[in-house]
């Protein structure tokens, strides 16, 4: 780990060895942990829980409470941007269930002593993101910690009939993604420093700054509008995180007892070459995403209506694959689809 600079504004990413959703504990380790502790979703009035993006309780006939928590280490150096990304990422797990009303956030933040001055800027970024989705920060907890981290415990409500899980996908459904992939490679390029700057710049055909700023723009785009667009049409929904697109497709496959075939990879233009340079596996669907898009299954007869809903709400969306009768998730000669904003 590089020693943090002391004479310039602190670079938040230098205070942690793993960044953003790359910190995530692996799926199999998580499954083992939950199994060993006997944690399952068998509780009265629980609509869904462990294994989904969030837990949902039935409060009354027409009201469900959705709860989730997510936090991670800095993926960018600017504290306000980091706060916005952390909030959008935490919110995304609630939005993936279709819950978008009464959004509240309890901030979870840890900082090394030498970074306590940036706490208020991180909070400003989080607060801006909450305001953008008509939500609010309603409390939180902070602690001193060797690695900085920030995020939040999110609550939101929904009509129980509007809720989505990863379990509802059926063979024949088509699969859509609401943000392009590639933020891990973009932010990796941002961190390499002057020693390898030329190598990185030579690897891509557009300015590195464009790639980085687009990645940040996608990460700071809340998934609420996407959730509102899909929830009347989708059969299943999750959000793409540290497991990457293929990992998240495997979650759908396992939870819905179906197969998933990925045939297209929408990517931030320039990130495939960076990923190849770094060995991140973007072209294999394995690169970690932070504050990624919603991965949505929709039946054939609802595709047209959902496309209209995406257009009406000005939500980016690309078709990326299909649900099959098989099992597991795999890439099938995927086309790389470069996206620039």
């Amino acid at each position, binding site marked *: *780990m590089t020693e943090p600079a002391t004479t310039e504004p602190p670079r938040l990413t230098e205070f942690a*060895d*793993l960044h953003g959703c*790359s910190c995530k504990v692996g799926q199999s380790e998580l499954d083992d942990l939950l199994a060993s502790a006997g944690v399952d979703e068998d509780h009265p009035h629980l609509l869904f829980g462990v294994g989904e993006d969030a837990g949902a309780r039935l409060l009354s006939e027409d009201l469900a409470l959705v709860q989730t928590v997510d936090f991670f280490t800095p993926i960018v150096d600017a504290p306000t941007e980091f706060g916005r990304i952390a909030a959008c990422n935490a919110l995304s797990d609630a939005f993936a269930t279709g819950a978008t009303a009464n959004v509240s956030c309890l901030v979870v933040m840890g900082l090394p002593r030498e970074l306590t001055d940036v706490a208020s800027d991180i909070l400003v970024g989080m607060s801006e993101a909450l305001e953008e989705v008509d939500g609010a920060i309603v409390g939180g907890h902070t602690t001193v910690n060797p690695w900085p981290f920030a995020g939040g415990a999110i609550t939101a409500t929904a009509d129980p009939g509007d809720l989505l899980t990863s379990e509802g996908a059926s063979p024949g459904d088509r699969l859509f993604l609401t943000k392009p992939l590639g933020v891990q490679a973009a932010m*990796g*390029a941002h*961190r*390499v420093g002057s*020693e*390898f700057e030329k*190598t*990185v710049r030579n690897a891509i055909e557009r300015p590195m700054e464009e790639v980085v700023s687009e990645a940040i723009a996608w990460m700071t785009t809340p998934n609420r509008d996407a959730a509102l667009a899909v929830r009347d049409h989708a059969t299943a929904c999750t959000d793409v995180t540290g497991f990457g697109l293929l990992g998240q497709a495997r979650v759908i496959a396992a939870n819905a007892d179906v197969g998933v075939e990925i045939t297209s990879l929408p990517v931030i233009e320039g990130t495939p070459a960076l990923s*190849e*340079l*770094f*060995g*991140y*596996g973007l072209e*294999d669907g394995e690169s970690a995403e932070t504050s990624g898009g919603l991965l949505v299954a929709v039946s054939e007869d609802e595709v047209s209506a959902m496309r209209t809903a995406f257009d009406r709400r000005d939500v980016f969306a690309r078709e990326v694959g299909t649900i099959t009768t098989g099992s597991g998730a795999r890439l099938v000669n995927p086309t790389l689809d470069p996206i620039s904003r």
Partner: protein
Amino acid sequence: MTHVDVTGEVCPRPALIVRRELSELEEGETLIVEGDYPPAQKNLTRSCEKRGFDVNTIESAENGSFELEITVTEFASIG
């Protein structure tokens, strides 16, 4: 046999350091890479194998430390 130690380096730097070392080698030569950052082992293996290098894992410990033997094959290209 050339040796490079990327202990303490976090991604994506190990891949770039190894790439620089490999660019100095000829066909048939081998680079030994030591490191301790768990994601780097997978990322290095992936990036080198995709470029036609032969990667042999000599050590892969639970604490994340690893040692790889990377050989320049006739198909290898630094890209």
